[in-house]
Every structure is written in C-alpha cells, then in structure tokens.
C-alpha cells in the first residue's frame, strides 16, 4: 500500500466542562460556532486546505453527535479512498479494554492506526480552537529545522500567559524550556496545542511514557518535558494571525463577536481557504418588511421580523416582530417571540423564548441558556 508523509491525529475527546450546558449532550469540538459551523470544522478545514488528507479523530466523551457529524468526512473533502477521516473511539483488545487516559495515551492506543500509513511525520492537533493555519508550511519548517518536534506558538498577553503552556526559546526558535501553566511565566510564547513530530521519535517516547507509572500520559505535562530532558531538537513555530481557545462561555461569546467587525481578523469569506461544514437543508433567510439587521451574521433558514444588532444567528432561527436581539449568539432553531428582548446571551439549540420575555443584561456577565429550554414571560 502507499504511504502517507504526514498523518494528523485530532484530539476530540474533551468534555469541555467549562462550557456548561452547551456540552451536556455534546463533545466540545461539536459545539456550534459562527452562525453555521461547529468548532471542529476549523481544524478539519485546515487539514484539507493544507493537503493533509488522513485524519484520525480520537473521541471518547458523548461521541454520537460528533460521529454522525463527521461521517466519512465528505463535507471537508476528506472522504478519501485511502486515508480520509477515521473516527477512533476507545476499544477492547484481547488483553482487555481501556479508556483513553490522557492525550498521549490516546495516541499510544492508536499506534496501529498510524503505522498502517507508515508516515514520516505525525501532526497532533485538537478540535477546540478557532483559527486558520496552513500546516504544510509548518511541516516545511519542521523539515528545514531538522526537528524532532515542532510546536506552534503564539504571543499572548503577559497577564494571560499563566493560563497556557509557555515556552522559552533561543534566537533560533529552539525550545529551551517548557512550563505548563507557570505561575511566573518567563515568556509570553504560548503553545497552541499544535505539534508536528517525527513519527519515529514520537513512537519511542509514547512507548516510554506508557511504561512510566507516574506519567499522566499528557503531551504538555509528560511527553514534551521528557523530550526536552533528553535534549531532543524541539523547535517553536511562531504563528501570526487569529487564534482563539473557545473553552469558556466568555471566550466562545467573544470569538463569535469577533466575526462581526466590518473587517474581521478571521475572514470567513476567503475563497482560497474555505471553512467547510455540513450544510443542512435550509432556504435563503427571509428579512421581513420592518426588520432591522445590522452588524450581524445570519444563516440560511432564518426569518427575521424584528431587530437584530451585533449578533450571530444560526440556521432556522425565528425572530418575531418587535423582538430585539443585541450582542448575542442564537443557536440553531431557536424561536423568539414577539417583543422578546435578548442581550449579551448565548441561547442553546432549539430553545423557545416566549413573546415579551427578556433574557440577559446589556452589560455584565454573559447569560447562557441551554438547549431545548423554554423561557417564559416573567410574571408581574
């Protein structure tokens, strides 16, 4: 059989506890984003646009929606005869059964999947960041630097640095230190959770790490530090551009609002780097006489009779007359009654907001309403 130069392993097992109600029935990578997408669309589209056509998706938590969403990868042009998308849940072997016990263990358990393609490089990515990146350029860089591992990094604000894996590098971008969520960060170069490994080296470390009783089987906490200790050639790949971890309600809301700029820094209309997604059957959106829509993104299948300002509406949302929506994210098939008011909120899929009801405040914290809820008019 033919080999693949580079195979991607996409970690999509995250429960995403900090997204609260949104991840009740859903793995985090399957959470809706940007009026049309799910978070994982961005990483998958990056793969296909970068020419990486073999992607193992490691699932564990609530995978039903994600599995059926991924299918064989047709929406991302990843339904390949050889390669393409493969969903990799934990499974039983003759020796027994194991759930994935950390990111490194998840890859370890699927070594036979990787080996069947006999790749030279393995790209490890996760399904919970919003960004556009050409992994083929990073691979070129990895080869040119003759690296054992390359980690994509981005400059973050100093005050936020302690939330990330932080790297210190020399002037050649060689990594000299790696600290997972340091209290006193030595730099503001944060790991984006995107790794390219030379497969031979990674395989060796995965096997070692698996044998280590004390390891938590995590890339950031165990595998990378071990490589650093052994003075492997680890280099940082500096990335400029939009990148956002949407792991909290606030950051999810913010990332949605970022799209509403007149010239957003994440351009979804770029035909040379399309973001692919499953397209449900929806007609064009209908804007009624008397409706007013500004600074917003609205998907097909919506009908708007009221006002929408600075908001993101997913497919099938109905906004009745005199309703007013500001600074909000409205997920698929939400019905908003006459005169209802919604401010600074994220409304989960399929929820019904009765006529006259009010949700959220014009300032302060973001209000989150879960999916398939029913918000009634407050009495009195």
């Amino acid at each position, binding site marked *: 059989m033919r080999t693949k130069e580079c195979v991607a392993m996409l970690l999509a097992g995250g429960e995403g506890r900090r997204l609260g109600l949104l991840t009740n029935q859903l793995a985090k990578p399957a959470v809706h984003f940007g*009026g049309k997408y799910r978070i994982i669309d961005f990483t998958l589209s990056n793969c296909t646009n970068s020419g990486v056509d073999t992607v193992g998706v490691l699932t564990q938590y609530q995978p039903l929606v994600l599995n059926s969403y991924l299918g064989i990868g047709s929406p991302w042009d990843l339904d390949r005869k050889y390669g393409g998308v493969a969903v990799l849940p934990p499974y039983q072997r003759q020796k027994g059964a194991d759930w994935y016990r950390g990111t490194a263990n998840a890859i370890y358990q699927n070594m036979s999947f990787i080996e069947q393609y006999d790749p030279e490089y393995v790209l490890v990515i996760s399904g919970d960041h919003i960004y556009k990146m050409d992994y083929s350029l990073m691979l070129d860089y990895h080869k040119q630097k003759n690296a054992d591992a390359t980690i994509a990094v981005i400059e973050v604000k100093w005050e936020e640095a302690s939330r990330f894996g932080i790297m210190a590098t020399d002037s050649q971008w060689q990594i000299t230190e790696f600290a997972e969520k340091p209290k006193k960060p030595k730099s503001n170069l944060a790991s984006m959770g995107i790794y390219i490994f030379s497969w031979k080296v990674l395989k060796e470390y995965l096997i070692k790490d698996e044998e280590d009783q004390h390891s938590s089987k995590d890339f950031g906490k165990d595998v990378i530090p071990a490589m650093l200790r052994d003075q492997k050639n680890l280099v940082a790949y500096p990335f400029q551009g939009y990148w956002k971890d949407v792991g909290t309600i606030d950051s999810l809301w913010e990332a949605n609002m970022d799209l509403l700029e007149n010239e957003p820094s994440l351009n979804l209309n770029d035909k040379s780097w399309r973001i692919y997604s499953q397209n449900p059957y929806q007609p*064009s*959106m209908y804007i009624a006489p008397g409706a007013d*829509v500004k*600074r917003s*993104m609205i998907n*097909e299948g919506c009908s708007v009779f009221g006002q929408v300002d600075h908001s993101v509406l997913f497919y099938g949302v109905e906004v009745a007359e005199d309703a007013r929506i500001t600074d909000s994210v409205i997920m698929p098939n939400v019905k908003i009654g006459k005169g209802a008011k919604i401010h600074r909120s994220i409304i989960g899929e399929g929820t019904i907001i009765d006529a006259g009801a009010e949700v959220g405040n014009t300032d302060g914290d973001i209000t989150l309403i879960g999916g398939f809820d029913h918000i009634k008019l407050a009495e009195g």
Partner: protein
Amino acid sequence: MSQIMGVINLVNEPDQLEQLTNYRCVSSVPFGGRYRLIDFVMSNMVNSGIEKVAVFAHTKYRSLMDHLGSGKEWDLDRKRGGLFILPPAVDETRELMKGDLYNFNRNRDYFERGSEQYVLVTRSHQVCQIDFRPVLEQHISTGADITMIYQEVDSDTFARARRIDVNPDGRVTMIEEYNRSLKQSKKVSMDMFLLRKELLLEIVERSLAQGYDYFVRDGIMKNLQKLKVHGYEFNGHLGIVNTIPSYYYNTMQLLQPEVWKELFLSRNPIFTKVKDEPPAKYNSEALATNSLIANGCVIEGKVQNSVLFRGVKIHKGATVINSIILQGCEIGEHAIIENAILDKDVIIRPGKVLIGDQTAQFVADKRKVI
C-alpha cells in the same frame, strides 16, 4: 419500495426564458436564492419515496450535469435505482430535432429494467411542494389509464402552460395547445402524468409507428377518447416558470412568508447542491427589508423587495430594489439597481444606475460588467 419510477423530461421543454437560457437549459435556471428549477420536482419525487429518477437531458445540459452530479444531494447516488442522467445520442444530430417520444423510445432500456409498475412523467419548471403518493392512490381508485395533475388558477400565470377541461367525474375532456385560448378554462396542466409503464411503452410504440413523436400532443391529446385520462387537482402553491415575466413574478411570490414557508419549511426539504458559503454578513450600514438573502452575501447597502443569491456583495451606499440578483454579483458603491434581473457574476461599477420597469425588467447577461 416505491412502485413509481420518475422521468423528468427535458426534451423540448417550453422555454421563453430568453437570456437566462442562453447557456443553460430551463431545468438548471437558478431560482429562489439558492436552487435550480429542477430541484423542486427532483425533491418532490424523492420526498414521495420515489427511488429511481431519470432525467432525459436534451440540450445545454452541462451546468445541469454539474449541478446534479451523482445525485448525492437527493440521496439518489444508489447502487440499485438512483439517478440516471440520459443525454441524447448526439452522434445522430438529426434526432435532436425530433419529439420527446423518440427519446423515450431510445431509453426503453431504462423503463424495461425497472420493476416499478408506474411511471411519473414530468417537466422541470413547476415550482411547488407536491406529494405524489396521493396521486397514485387516486390513480388506482379511479381506475384511470392516465392521471394528469392540474391546478385551478385565479389569475394569469405569466407562463406557457396548457389549459384543460375536466368533467364532473374528474375525467379530462380537453387539453389545449399552449396558451391557444387562454381564458377558456381556469384549469392549468402541471405537465405531470402518471400511468402504467406498459401503457407508456405502448403509447411510445404506437405513436412513433404512426409518425407522431410528441408525448402530450400526440400520445395523450389525440387519444382523449380512447384513454381514460383523469385529473388530479393540486391545491398548494404553484409557480410555473418558463418565461421572463413568470420568472420574475414567481420569484417575488417567495417574499410572502406563507409561500416561503410552504415551499421551504415543510417537513420535506427542497434539496440542492451544497455550497460552502459562510452565513450572510450585515455590516453597520446595512438596510435590508422584505428580501430573501442567501449565504455568502455581504450587505453594506440597501436591499428592498429583492432576492439575493449566494455570494452577492452589496457595497456601501448601493441600493437594490425589486430585483433578482444571481450568484456572485457585485453591486458597486452608490449604484442603484431597480426592477432588474442580473444573471450570475455580473459586476455593476460604482455609481451606475440601472432601472427597469415592473412589467419589463432590466436583464443583464452572465458575467457582464456594467
């Protein structure tokens, strides 16, 4: 398994769509912001449980082939059954001039291979949501030889369509030629015929043997005495689209929320080819009312009583009123477009003013730069 096989007959489909069919056939004319005309009848067939559909293509069907592909979007990329696009045999060019029965005959194979008992023969230019299952039920219960679907219309359809007469027993007593005596009957044929496969093949054979080669004119109209032809009345929303006025009128009909809902939000979706466009984007100066807006549009100006297809860009200060703007058009800053139909990828330069009339729209050819 369905007992019906579908035939979408594009041979000599009535076409007065002028520039819109310069480079495409009627069936692939874009309609309703993101569809092509054929999507409606294809989806109606699939939603009625029909699992085998043949498209008898005739001329200018390259964009149609691209649109239909393997039939995947309609779930018709099947191992058994599914979609069959049957082009004419172009090496015998004289045959292109012949009637549709000639094509039916060339495709006897398609009919003979299927185990289905009935054939539904339709055109591609009827915009509606129709369930063909009750039509079969009526067909069986009346014992008709042929059941043809019609609608009683109140006003002018603006389209080329045949009027028919139906007696109180439901039997069709007269079918007229296109528009010959427009006001005699309010009943308009929807050009959809259900009949047993054997009868269809018999009609094909008998008519061709006599030198006649048109299905409706020769096969049915001439045999109204001999054959028991029943009418099936369809009461839902109907748009017959094969002239520029009917194209404009029926597009504007979609701006009535009840029509939009009936056609698009029923439990039966209208399927079409997928495009990967982001949601429509409205900036701070957008002013859009009473319009249909498809994904990929960027609205920075004013849009009113209009239908915008995918990927249309309305620049700042531009105004679009009472118009149909097809995929990929760009309206420059401060341009004014009124009562117009712009075919795909038309570019209107900043400041241009194009105003048609409500009864005679301004039509711009594909890829024109104005």
